[in-house]
C-alpha cells in the first residue's frame, strides 16, 4: 500500500491525520457528517453537497464499488471526502469500478484512515464549520485556509450548481403531463420519480421567472433540492410567489425552504444539519412515522407565520413544538411533518392552494423508500387541479 499522509484542519484548529486516497490537491468546504451506512456514490454526486466536505461515519466506504446508474449528477460537487476506511477492492455484481478511481477521475480530494468519530463528535459539539484538507501542504497553511474560508450562511450556491439552460426529460410510458422542475441542485432520482409516473420533466435554471415557467403550461411545478443558504435565493423565491395558486407545486429540501420563504416564513441554520438515512419524521395528519433520507443544513422556522411562540422542550420532541394553523399571503398553511429527533419542521402544506413541500428526500437515493408516496400525492394534486 502506497501511503501518502494527508491532513485536515478545521476552522477552529482541530487537526486530523489521514491518508490521501482521492484527487491530488487541497480542498476547503464546510465539513458535515453523514450517518448513512450505504449510498456513498449518491451522496458524493449529490449537488446539494456543493461547497461541503463530507465525513462518512460508517467504517468502510467503497465496498460495493461505483456504477453510473447511481450517479445523481454528471459531475461531482462535493468538495472533499473524509472516511475511516476506503475499500481498495470493490465487490458487487453492479460494480463498474472502484470508488478510489471514481474520486480521482472526478477530482474529489479524499482522506482515509481518519478518526472520523472524533471529527463527527467535534462537528456535533462545535457545529458545522469550514475545514481545509490536502496532501503536501503544511498544517499552518491548512489552518489559515480553514479559518479564512467563507461560512455557508449567505451563500447562494444553488445558482452555481443549477443547469445553465433548460432541458427536457421524456416521460416513461404514456405522457400524462408536464412538470417544470426548477433545478436548484436537482438529483437525478427525483427526475426519474417524475418521469416514471408519466410526466415529462422540463428542467429549468434556478433563475427562471414565473412568467417563463407558466409559459411552459405545466401541470405542476417542482422545486428541487440544492446546496447553500436559501435566504439569498431571491429569484426562485420570486418565481414561486408568481406561480403559487396558479399551478400545483411540490418542493423538496432546498425547494421546501424556498416555498417557506415565499410564504413568509424564515429559515435558520441548524448547528450541524441533518445528513443521513435514519431520521424519523412524523406525518402530523395521522402520526405515521417515516424513516427518511435527509441532507440539509438550514431549516424553515414556521413560527414566523404564527402568532404563537415555540415552547422549550426537554426530552422527546413534542407536537406543540410546531405551530397549528398559520396564515400567509397565499392563505392558510399547516406544518405537515415534524422531525422527531429535534422537533424541527419537515413539511408544509397550503390549505387554500395546491402547494406542499418536505424538508427531506422522498426520492431516497440513498435512503429508505418510506416516503415515495409523496410523488403520488403530487400526481394526484396535478390531476385534480
Amino acid at each position, binding site marked *: 500500500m502506497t501511503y501518502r499522509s494527508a491532513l485536515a484542519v478545521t476552522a477552529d484548529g482541530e487537526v486530523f491525520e489521514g491518508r490521501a486516497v482521492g484527487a491530488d490537491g487541497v480542498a476547503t468546504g464546510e465539513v458535515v457528517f453523514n450517518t*448513512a451506512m450505504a449510498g456513498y456514490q449518491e451522496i458524493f454526486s449529490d449537488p446539494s453537497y456543493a461547497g461541503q466536505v463530507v465525513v462518512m461515519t460508517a*467504517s468502510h466506504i467503497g*465496498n460495493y464499488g461505483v456504477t453510473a446508474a447511481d450517479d445523481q449528477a454528471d459531475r461531482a460537487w462535493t468538495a472533499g471526502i473524509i472516511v475511516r476506511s476506503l475499500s481498495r477492492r470493490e465487490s458487487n455484481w*453492479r460494480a463498474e469500478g472502484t470508488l478510489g478511481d471514481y474520486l480521482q477521475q472526478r477530482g474529489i480530494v479524499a482522506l482515509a484512515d481518519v*478518526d472520523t468519530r472524533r471529527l463527527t463528535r467535534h462537528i456535533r459539539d462545535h457545529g458545522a464549520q469550514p475545514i481545509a484538507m490536502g496532501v503536501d501542504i503544511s498544517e499552518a497553511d491548512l489552518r489559515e485556509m480553514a479559518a479564512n474560508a467563507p461560512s455557508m450562511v449567505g451563500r447562494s450556491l444553488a445558482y452555481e450548481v443549477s443547469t445553465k439552460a433548460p432541458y427536457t426529460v421524456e416521460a416513461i410510458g404514456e405522457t400524462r403531463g408536464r412538470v417544470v422542475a426548477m433545478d436548484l441542485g436537482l438529483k437525478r432520482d427525483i427526475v426519474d420519480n417524475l418521469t416514471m409516473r408519466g410526466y415529462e420533466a422540463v428542467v429549468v435554471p434556478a433563475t427562471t421567472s414565473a412568467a417563463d415557467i407558466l409559459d411552459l403550461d405545466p401541470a405542476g411545478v417542482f422545486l428541487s433540492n440544492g446546496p447553500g443558504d436559501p435566504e439569498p435565493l431571491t429569484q426562485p423565491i420570486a418565481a414561486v410567489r408568481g406561480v403559487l395558486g396558479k399551478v400545483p407545486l411540490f418542493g423538496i429540501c432546498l425547494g421546501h425552504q424556498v416555498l417557506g420563504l415565499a410564504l413568509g416564513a424564515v429559515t435558520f441554520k441548524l448547528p450541524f444539519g441533518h445528513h443521513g438515512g435514519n431520521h424519523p419524521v412524523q406525518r402530523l395528519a395521522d*402520526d405515521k412515522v417515516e424513516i427518511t433520507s435527509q441532507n440539509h443544513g438550514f431549516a424553515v422556522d414556521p413560527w414566523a407565520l404564527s402568532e404563537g411562540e415555540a415552547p422549550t422542550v426537554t426530552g422527546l420532541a413534542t407536537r406543540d413544538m410546531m405551530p397549528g394553523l398559520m396564515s400567509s399571503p397565499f392563505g392558510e398553511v399547516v406544518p405537515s411533518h415534524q422531525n422527531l*429527533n429535534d422537533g424541527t419542521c419537515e413539511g408544509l402544506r397550503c390549505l387554500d392552494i395546491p402547494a406542499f413541500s418536505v424538508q427531506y428526500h422522498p426520492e431516497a437515493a440513498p435512503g429508505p423508500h418510506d416516503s415515495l408516496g409523496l410523488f403520488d400525492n403530487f400526481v394526484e394534486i396535478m390531476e385534480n387541479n
Partner: protein
Amino acid sequence: MARRTDIETILLIGSGPIIIGQACEFDYSGTQAAKVLRREGYRVVLVNSNPATIMTDPEFADATYLEPITAAVVERIIEKERPDACLPTLGGQTALNVTTELAKAGVFERYNVELIGAGLDAIERAEDRGRFKETMEGVGLATPRATYARSMAEAMSAAAEIGYPVMIRPSFILGGGGTGLAFDEEDFITRARYGLSVSPVGEILVEESVLGWKEYELEVMRDRADNAVIVCSIENLDPMGVHTGDSITVAPIQTLSDREYQEMRDEAIRCLQAIGVETGGSNVQFAVDPATGRRLVIEMTPRVSRSSALASKATGFPIAKIAALLAVGYTLPEIANDITGKTPASFEPALDYVVVKVPRFDFAKFPSASTTLGTSMQSVGEAMAIGRTFPEALQKALRSLESGHKGLGATEAERAWIDTPDTVLVEMLDRPTPDRIFQVGEALRRGMDVATVAAHTRFDPWFVDQLSEITEVRHEIEAAQLLAAAADPAVRPCLRTAKRYGFSDAQLAYLWQRPEDYVRQLRRDLAVQVTYKTVDTCAAEFEATTPYMYSTFEDEDEVPPAEKPRVLVLGSGPNRIGQGIEFDYCCVHASFALRQAGYETVMVNCNPETVSTDYDTSDRLYFEPLTVEDVLAVVDAERPEAVIVQLGGQTPLNLASALAERGVTIAGTQPASIDRAEDREQFSALCAQLGIRQPPHGIATSAGEAEQVVDQIGLPVLVRPSFVLGGRAMRVVYSYEELSDYLTDIYGEGMSDSGAGLDLSAAPLLIDRFLESATEVDVDAVFDGSEMLIGGVMEHVEEAGVHSGDSACVTPPPTIGEEAMAAVLSATEALARALEVRGLINIQFAVKGNDVFLLEANPRGSRTVPFISKASGVPLAKVAARVMMGATLAELRAEEVLPQSFRQDFMAVKEAVLPWDRFPEEDIILGPEMRATGEVMGISESAGVAYGKALLATGVVLPESGNVFFSLANRDKAIGLAAAQALSMQGFKLYCTQGTARYLDHYGVPNEVVDKVGEGPNDGLALIEAGEVHLVVNTPRGSRARSDGRKLRLAAQHAGIPCVTTVQGALAATRSLQAGRDALHAPRSLQDWHR
C-alpha cells in the same frame, strides 16, 4: 395510542433449559421484558424451568414458576393466575411452540387470555413452510422456486425445470431426514427415490438450491400503528448452507449497494405486514445470488431470536424491551431511545463501527460428530467483538473465542496448517468447518489470490480482500522484527497499523519472538495506546448517556470520568459446555449487589447472548475479549478498586495470576489460594494436614507405573491426563485390560499420528481410586474470613464418576446421614479457612455410609450457585461479591442483603439437559466428561415429584403404563432391583436380557427374556423398532461390552423413547412415576414456596 389499561396481568413464557440453538439470549430478552413490564405497572407471571436465569430471580416477576414449560403445566398456571394477556414472543421456539399448542387446544379462549405480540395466525403463517411461501408470493416477494413431486417422473421434470443443483426435502419428515442437495441427475435419482420412500406421504419438495448464495438478515421492529424500523442488518461471512448460528456474521451489511439494501428493507417490512406480526421484533432472512443480485426471502422468525440479541448488543437498541412495550400498546415514537434519552425509538441505528460474531464449537466432546458445518446448528456459544473496521473486529472476535487463536493466525495454533500442501489447503477451503477461517488466513499468508480463496469458500471477495489486508499487515510486522527488538521509534507506524488491524500483543509477541509484556511496554513507550469509543445507536450524532464502550486504536478516547469507586467484574466469555449461563448469572448478581452498595460496576465480557452484556446491567459495559491485554487496558482506563475473577468460571480465573502479577488487585480469594487448590500435590498435603480424607490416588509416567499405582490403590480407578481440564478424556476403568485400552486411546499411536498425541512423561496420568456406589455431594459456601455461610448441600442422583454437570442433584440431601453431613460441613469450613477464602467455595465429596472423601475443592463460584440460590432463597453470588469487597456476613445480615435465617421446606432437583438430538450418533451414556448444555429445576415437597418435574422439564415424558426394556450391568443389579420391583408393581411389563432376567427371577420379579442383540429375532432392537417398548433402562457395562447397549440406546433415542442410563436415574424415575402425572403438573410459584 399509549399503554393499555385493559390488561393487568401478563403471562411471560421463558425458553427453558439452554440447548444448542436456544441459549441465554432468551434470558436476556425475558429479563428485559419482565423488568419493563413491571416498571409499567403490570403484574408479571413468569414460567421458565431454567434456574440459572436472571429472569427467574423472584424480584423480576410477581409470580415466578420454575415449572416445566408444557401445555398441561402452563394451562394450570393460567387457571391459577388468570392472566389477561400472554406474551409468547420472547421465549424462543419453546415459548412459541407451547403457545401454539395452548391456542389450538382453546386454552387462551377458555380463560379469556389475549395473545399479545403475535397471534396464532401470524405464528403459523411464519412457521409453516407452505403457508409462508404462499404469503410471501401474495405480496410479491420471491422465494426459492419449488415443486412438490409424488413420483419419480414428477420429480425428474421438476428438477429439469429448476436446474441443478436442487434441494430435496421429503414431506412430513421429523428432523429433516432425507433432506439434501443433488448436484447432478445421477445424484438426484438416488436421493429423490430415497426421499419418496421415507416420506410417510410419499412426497418430496424439489427446490431451487441457494447453496453458496450470500446470506443476509434484517431485524425489524413493528408497532401497532404500522410504523416499522430496521434495527440492524447482518451479513453472513459463511454463505447459504451454513446455519446462521454457526456462521461468522457481520453487522452492518457490507457488500450491498444502497439500492439493493433499500429494496431488501422494503421487502422485510412487507414480510412482517403480510405475516401479521402486529407488534415486536422479527428476523427476516434473505439469500442473494452474488452473480445477478437476485434476492429471495428464505424465512422469517416472528419473535425475538438469537439474532435479535446480537442485533441489540451490536446497535445498543434493546429489541426485547421495546418489543414488550409495543406489545402493551405503545408505539415506537412514544418510546425514548435509552442511549440518547432525547430521541425516539422510531429510528434506525447508524453504526460507525463493525461488529463480528464468531461461533464457538465443542466438537471434541462429541467424537461421533463430523466437524462439517451445515444447516443444523451445532455451535454451543458465540463471541462478539466490536472494532472500527472489519479486520479489527474479526481479530478481536477470534481472540475472544478462547480457542487458542489470538486472532487470524500469527499464533502457535497456526502451526496446524503450516506444513499443509497448497493443494490440500485449497481443498480445505471448500469445506465449512470451525477452522476454515484460519485456513483462509493461512492461504492468504502464502499469497493465494483473493479470487481463488473467494471461489473456494464462497466468501464475498470484499471480505477476503479485507482478510488479505490483515495478512499483508502481518508481513509488515514480520519485516519490522529488528526495529521492534531494538525498540526503535521507527517501528511506531507499523505498530500502530498492526493494532488498528486488530493484532493482539500476543500475536505481535509471537511474530517478534518477544514476551507479550515487551510488546505492551513498547506500545506504552511509543504511545500506541488503546482508545475507547461508545456504542451509541447514532454514530455520534447525539450525545450518549450510557457508557457502553469498545476498544480501538484511534485519536480520541471517550471514557467518561467516574465519580464513585469502581469494581471490575470479568464475565465468562462465549458459552461452552461446562461454562455457560450459570456463571453469567453470578457476574450479573455481583454487579447488582455492588451497584447497590455504592460502587460503580464495570462489566467486561464478549458474549452477546447474556444479561451481563446488557448495558443496563452494570454502570459501564466494556464489550471486550477476556485476555490479559484487553483486561489490563480496561483496568488502566477505569482504575478499579478491585477485579472480580471468581464468578465467571474458568475464563477469568485463568487470567487471575497474570493480572495479579501485573499489579491488579484481585477481589476476595487470592490467585495463590486458587492455585493451591488446583495443584494436586500441594492440595493433597493440605488435606492430609487438615485430616480430610481423599480417595487413594497416584501419578504415573509410564504404562508400567500406571499398573503399579492400580496394584496399590485397587480397581476401579478414575484416570485422566494431568493437563486436561473439565473432565476431558477422563474415564472410569474397571480392569487392567481397560486401562491398557485407555492408554492406547489417549497416548497411543492413533493419537500421535494426528499430531495430537501425548507424551506420558510430559503429561502424566492421574489415577484416583473410583469409589463405587458412593454418593457424590456438592457444597456451595461463602466464607468471610471468620464466618461460614453454607448456601446449600446437594446430593447427586447419579453416582460419583458422572460429571457433576451431567448429574441430577437434590437439595437438601435425602440420604446423607447426620454424621456424614457434619463431616462434610466441618471439612468445608476447615478448607475455606486454610485456603483463606474470601467469597465462594465449592467442594465435591464422595460419601459412602459415614465415610466422607474429598474429591475436589474450587475456591470460586460454581455452576450450582444459581440453583442453590433459587432453592434456599439466599442470593449467594450477591453475598459473595460483597464479601469479596470486604463486607462480613454479619454486616450483610444487618443490611438485609442476607436473611437472618433461612430454611427450605421443600425438595429441589436439578437435572441436566444433554444435546443428543444434535449429535444423533453419539452414545447417550453419562460419564466423567461433561456434555450437558443446560439444566432445569423441579420443586416439590416430595423428592419423587421434584425429580419428575425436572425430568418433564428436560422434555422427558415417562410412560404411565406399557413395556420397559430393562437391562443392567452386574454391578447395578442390587440397586436396580428396587426399580424393577416398583415398575412391575406399577403394572409395567419388563423385557430383560438374560443376566438381568435371571437376577429378577431370583427375587420373583416377573419379566420376559429377550434375545441378545443380533442373536435372535426377538432382540431389544426389534422390540424398540416394533414400538413395543415405552421406556428403556440400560446401564453401560464398561467400554468393551458397550456396543450392544450402545445400539439399543441409539435406537431408543432415534425412536424418541425415554432412556435411562444409570441405575440411580432409574430409581428416581420410578419414584416420580409413583407420584403420578397430576402431581407433576401442579404448579406453585417460587414466591409462594419461600413465603
